[in-house]
C-alpha cells in the first residue's frame, strides 16, 4: 500500500513540470504581450520605450531564459511579481485561493449532500415518479451552464426580493453568516452540474449493486430495507462516485472562474481571467499551476482513497 502511495505521489512532480512548460509556452505564443495589450495602438510610443517597458517588466531575454528565471524562483517560493501591479504573485494567490477553495468546497458539499440522496431515491424507486423527477432534474442539471444559472439567480433575487449577496468579500472567520449569504448563490450555481453527475452516477451504481447476489442474500435473510440500502449497497456504490467527485473538482474550479466574476468574488478564477486578458504572464503561470496542483492533489487523494476502499487496486 505504501509503495502505491509513494508511486502515485512521485508521478505528481513530472506532471507539474510538464504543466508549467506547457502553460509557459502557451501564454507566450499568444499574439501580443502585456505592453501591446496595455498600449494598444498608442501612436506616441516609440519602439525604444516599448522595449524599455518590456525590460522593466522582466519580459526581455529568450523564452528559455525567462522560463529558467521563473522556474528557479518558483522552486524557492518566489513566483515573481504581477506585471499589472508589481505585487508578489504569491501574496496575490494567498489572498485569492481561500475564496475559490471555499467556493469549491461548498459547491462540492451541496452537490454531494443533494446528489447522493437523490441518486439513492431514484435507484430504490426505479421507474417510479420520484425516479423520473430526479432523472429529469439530473438532465436539466447537466445541461444548464453555470454562468447562465448564476446570472439568472442574481437577477431573480434582485427582482423578487430586492437582494443581492454582499458585494465585498467577508471572511468566514469575521462573519460566518454574511460569508455564507455571499457564497450560497455562486456555490449553488456551479454545484448544479456536479450534483446532477453525482446523482446519475449514484443511481447507476446503486442499481448495479442492488442487483448483486449479496444484496439479494441480505434481503432474503430479512435485513431491514433501510439497512440493506445504506449499509450494504450504498457503501459499495459510493466507490466509483469518489472518483467522479475527484474529477469534478476540476469542473468546479473552471466554473468558479466565470461565476466569481459574476458575483464579484476576488478568487483565483477571477484573477486568472483578468491575468489572461492582460497577458500577466507570472500571474497566469502561477494561477494555472495552482489550479493544476489542486486538481492533481485531489486526484492523488482519490487514487489513495480508492486504494484503501478497494485494496485490489493498490495491489496492482
Amino acid at each position, binding site marked *: 500500500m505504501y509503495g502505491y502511495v509513494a508511486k502515485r505521489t512521485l508521478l505528481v512532480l513530472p506532471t507539474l513540470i510538464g504543466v508549467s512548460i506547457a502553460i509557459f509556452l502557451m501564454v507566450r505564443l499568444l499574439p501580443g504581450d502585456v505592453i501591446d495589450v496595455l*498600449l494598444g495602438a498608442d501612436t506616441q510610443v516609440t519602439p525604444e520605450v516599448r522595449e524599455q517597458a518590456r525590460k522593466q517588466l522582466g519580459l526581455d531575454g529568450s523564452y528559455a531564459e525567462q522560463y529558467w528565471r521563473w522556474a528557479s524562483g518558483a522552486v524557492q517560493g518566489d513566483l515573481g511579481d504581477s506585471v499589472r501591479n508589481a505585487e508578489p504573485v504569491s501574496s496575490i494567490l494567498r489572498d485569492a485561493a481561500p475564496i475559490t477553495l471555499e467556493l469549491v468546497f461548498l459547491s462540492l458539499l451541496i452537490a454531494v449532500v443533494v446528489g447522493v440522496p437523490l441518486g439513492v431515491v431514484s435507484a430504490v424507486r426505479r421507474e417510479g415518479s420520484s425516479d423520473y423527477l430526479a432523472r429529469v432534474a439530473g438532465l436539466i442539471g447537466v445541461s444548464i451552464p453555470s454562468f447562465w444559472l448564476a446570472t439568472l439567480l442574481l437577477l431573480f*433575487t434582485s427582482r423578487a426580493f430586492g437582494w443581492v449577496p454582499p458585494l465585498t468579500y467577508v471572511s468566514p472567520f469575521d462573519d460566518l453568516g454574511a460569508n455564507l449569504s455571499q457564497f450560497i448563490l455562486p456555490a449553488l450555481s456551479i454545484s448544479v452540474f456536479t450534483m446532477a453527475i453525482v446523482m446519475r452516477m449514484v443511481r447507476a451504481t446503486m442499481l448495479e449493486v442492488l442487483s448483486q447476489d449479496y444484496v439479494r442474500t441480505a434481503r432474503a435473510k430479512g435485513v431491514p430495507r433501510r439497512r440493506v440500502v445504506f449499509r450494504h449497497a450504498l457503501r459499495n456504490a459510493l466507490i466509483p462516485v469518489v472518483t467522479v467527485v475527484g474529477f469534478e473538482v476540476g469542473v468546479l474550479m473552471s466554473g468558479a472562474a466565470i461565476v466569481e466574476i459574476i458575483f464579484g468574488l476576488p478568487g483565483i478564477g477571477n484573477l486568472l481571467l483578468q491575468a489572461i486578458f492582460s497577458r500577466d504572464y507570472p500571474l497566469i503561470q502561477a494561477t494555472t499551476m495552482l489550479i493544476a496542483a489542486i486538481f492533481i492533489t485531489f486526484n492523488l487523494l482519490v487514487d489513495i482513497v480508492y486504494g484503501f476502499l478497494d485494496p485490489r487496486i493498490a495491489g496492482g
Partner: protein
Amino acid sequence: MSDIPSDKARSDSPGGGDLNRRDLLVKAGQIGAGAVAAGSLAGAAKASPARRKAAPPRGGKVTWALEQDPAHIAPFGGILTANHWGKAPMYESLIEWDVKLNERPALATSWKVVDARTIDFTLRRGVRFHNGKELTAADAKYSFDLQLNPPAPGSVAVLGQVPAIAGTEVRSKYVLRMKLKNPDARVFGYLAWNRYSAIVPEGMYGQVNAGREGIGTGPFRLLEYQPNSHLEFARFQNYWKRGRPYLDALSFKVLPDEQARVAALRAGAIDGGTFSADSAKALGQNRNLKVLRGLTAAFRELQMTIKPGDRKPWHDVRVRQAVNFAINRQEIINRVYSGFGEYSGHVPPGYGPWPLTRSELRDRYEKHDLPKARALMRAAGVANGFTVEMTTFSTPLDFASVAAVIKAQLNRININVNIVAQEPGTFAANNGRGTFEWDLTARGMRGDVDGYLAEFNPSSTAYQAWYPLYRNVRVWRLVGNGRIQLDQKKRIPMYKEAQRLLMNDVVQVPLVAVSKFQVVRPRVANMYVAFSDFNTGLHTSVYIKR
C-alpha cells in the same frame, strides 16, 4: 500663453448649477450691500429658501460599480483607464479641466511662460496633503521626477503620453520651474488631464505601497483598496476647495459583469454605474432609476495601411474617398447604437474647441453620397470593386456590429469586406505593428489635441508602421508646428485645417463617437457622464438628495 490669473469661485457641475456657500456670498455681494446685510442679520439658519435650495447638502455616501479593477492605483505610469478611476478621487495636478475641457488653475494658481522652453508655476498656498503636510515646490519636483521615470507598479510605457519635459527645479517654496526639451504645447493638456501628472508629497513612494495606498491633495482620502474587490474613500476635511466634496464617503465596488451591476443597482446595493445602451434602456423603465447619457472621447475609426509592396486599390486617394462617402454614419448610429451617437472627425466631437463642426462633418466631409462614391470608384478604375480584410475587436460586441454594417454599405460600391474579429490583445499587437489591411478600431481620451493627429507626423512610429507612402507636406507642417505653438488660440486654426486636409485624404476614416450610459439612483444628484471617460462627477459635483 499669457499669465493665468488666480481662479475664482467655480463649479464642476455640467450645468454649473451647484454653488457652495462661499459662491453664494460672493454673488450676494454683487447684488448689493443691503441684501448682504439682510442675509447677515437673518443668520445662516434663517437663510432664504432660494439659498437653501441652491446649496447642495453635505454628507452621505455613494457606492459606485466599476466595470474593471484598477489593478493598481499608483499615481504614475498607470496605463489603464481603470487605474485612473481608482486613483482620481485622491490625486490632483497643477491644472485641471472643467466639464467643457477648459483649463483652469488647480494646485498652481498661475503660470508664466518665461520662454519657449521654460514655464514657471506658482503653487497654491496652504494646500494640504492627506497626511497633513503642506504642498511645496519640492513635492511638485519629486512628482515630476517620478512622472518622467515611473517606478513600478507604473510603467515607462506611458512616456509616450508625456510631453517633452526635461526636468523641473525648485525656484522658491511655492514656485516650480519646468524646463522643456523643446517647445511643446501638450504640457498644459497633460497637466489638466491629470492622468499621469498627479502631485504627491516628497518621498511618498518610500512611505506607502503606492500600488495600494496613496497620499494626495484630492477631495477624498483613501481608506482601503482591495484589488478585484473594492476601494473605500472618506471625505478629506482639509480639502483646499472649501465646502467640497459634498459626500462624506465614496465607495467603488469592482463588478465586471454587467448583469451583476444591473442586479446590484436594482437591489440598491450600488448607487450607480456604467451600462450598455441596452441595459440602460431596460433600467430606464424603472422609475426609481435615472439614466445619464453623454458622449465620450471614444470614437470608432477605420484605419488603412498604405505601405510599400503590393499596390492596393486604396492607395489611390479616390478609392479612400469613395469608401468615406459610401459609409452611412447615421445608419451605424441607428442600427448599432440605438440612435445615440454623433459623427466624428479625427478629433472627437466635444473635445473642446478642436473638432470640426457638426455641420462640416454631416454636410460635407462625411456626407453619405453613394453616387459620388461610385463615380470615384469608376474614376479610380476599380468600378468592379475588390476584396479587403478588415480586422476588428472580438469584444466589445459593438465592433462586430459596426463591421457588419460597413460591410453591407461598402458592398454597394462592390467592395467585398472580409471581417476578422480578433481578441483584444492580438488585435492591439497587429495594429501596433501595422500588420493589417484595414482595422476597425477605437480611439480614446488624449491630454492634448496633438494626441489625435500625432500619427500624421512622418517621424512618428505609427506613421512608419501604417502609411509610410502617404504624403501631404501641408499636413506634416500643420501637425508639426501645432505641437510647438504654445499659444492655444493660434493652434486652433492649425488643427482645424489639418483635419480638413485629412478628411480629404482620408488615410483614416473617422466614423462615429458613441454615447456612454450611466444609471444612478435618484438620490444621487448632479452626476454626469464625463467626456474623459472618468467618473469625475463623483468626486467633484455629486451630492445626496435629502
